[in-house]
């Protein structure tokens, strides 16, 4: 077999393999590289009690309660389902109601998580504080700026 034939054959095989690989990744990657689950995904997965889990979503409005000086209760929601979380420790600066957050924790009972770590997630919107006040004065402040 000549060199040219070996090369051509190999190039063909390479392309087929690469194509297959790209297709496989495209069809499968979304599910797997997960930093956190959303509450709905968590409910679908039906995890066992006592399992370590990380969920992300928004802190539900009017759900944050301060119990003692350093312990909190709140709900994480994705507008469909909500998970109840309680936490002992210091909350990050950005953590507030309506704001995105990621919770590291253990499932205590279904729909309830005991958090060990809380990260605040901020979105890609940047806006001067003064403009927000103006907007709120004129009732233009919409909820799509979370």
């Amino acid at each position, binding site marked *: 077999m000549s060199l040219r034939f070996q090369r051509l054959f190999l190039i063909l095989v390479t392309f087929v393999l690469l194509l297959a690989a790209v297709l496989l990744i495209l069809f499968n990657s979304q599910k797997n590289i997960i*930093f956190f689950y959303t509450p709905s995904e968590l409910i679908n997965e039906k995890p066992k009690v006592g399992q370590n889990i990380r969920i992300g979503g928004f802190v539900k409005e009017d759900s944050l309660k301060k119990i003692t000086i350093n312990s909190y209760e709140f709900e994480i929601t994705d507008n469909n389902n909500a998970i109840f979380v309680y936490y002992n420790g*210091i909350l990050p*600066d*950005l953590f507030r109601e309506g704001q995105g957050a990621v919770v590291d924790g253990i499932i205590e009972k279904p729909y309830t998580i005991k958090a060990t770590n*809380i990260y605040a*997630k*901020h*979105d890609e919107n*940047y806006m*001067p504080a003064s403009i927000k006040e103006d907007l709120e004065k004129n009732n233009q402040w919409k909820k799509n700026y979370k």
Partner: protein
Amino acid sequence: MLGFLINPNKFNKLTDIILKPLFYLTAVIFLIGLILIYYSPNDYQQGSTVRIMYIHVPSAWLALLTYSIMTIYSIFALAFRIPFGFIINSAVAPIGAVFTLVCLVSGSLWGKPMWGTWWVWDARLTSVAILFIVYLIIIFINYSFEKIEVKEKIIAIFVVIGSINLPIIKFSVDWWNTLHQPASISKLSSPSIDPSMLKPLIAMTLAFTFIGLIIAILRIKTEIILRKKSI
């Protein structure tokens, strides 16, 4: 016209002319950027911590830009035997590494007050950390081979393979759930960053790019001289 992109002599000639004006231009833009940052408003959520963005975003952009340039030059250098591409690779890699490090460190400083952690292993942070290691390996290869002809080609091959990482970095925030927020600027449809904050960001990005360019020009000139000597 574009000969300076592949020809060392033309590159030297052109850069001899533009280096000084470029230097003054950079200084002016950098100063303007600093002033704009000083007068830029606080974010409605993050307060004045948002000012870390004016370092973090430009350095991240430059880390990616440097690697993309290296990838393009490596492909051209390997395919069309343009030796200038190899010169660029070994000259520019440390610059990229430094910008990646600045990006990682400033991001970490930003993450602690905002997210509540210095570091998490989400897709964006991990892939940028891998980019940093890739830069380091390129530098190691640069210093551990004796024959220039061998090492430059091996660097180019390595750069091309490592470029798989680039789209992963760029799109990691869109493809997967990450703690890191998605991109703000490249969304053309809905501007998600206010003009009063966009202006200093653009000024700083320009300034960082020019600083990188100046260092790159100086390093490339040195590399050209070194190679002429070693022959």
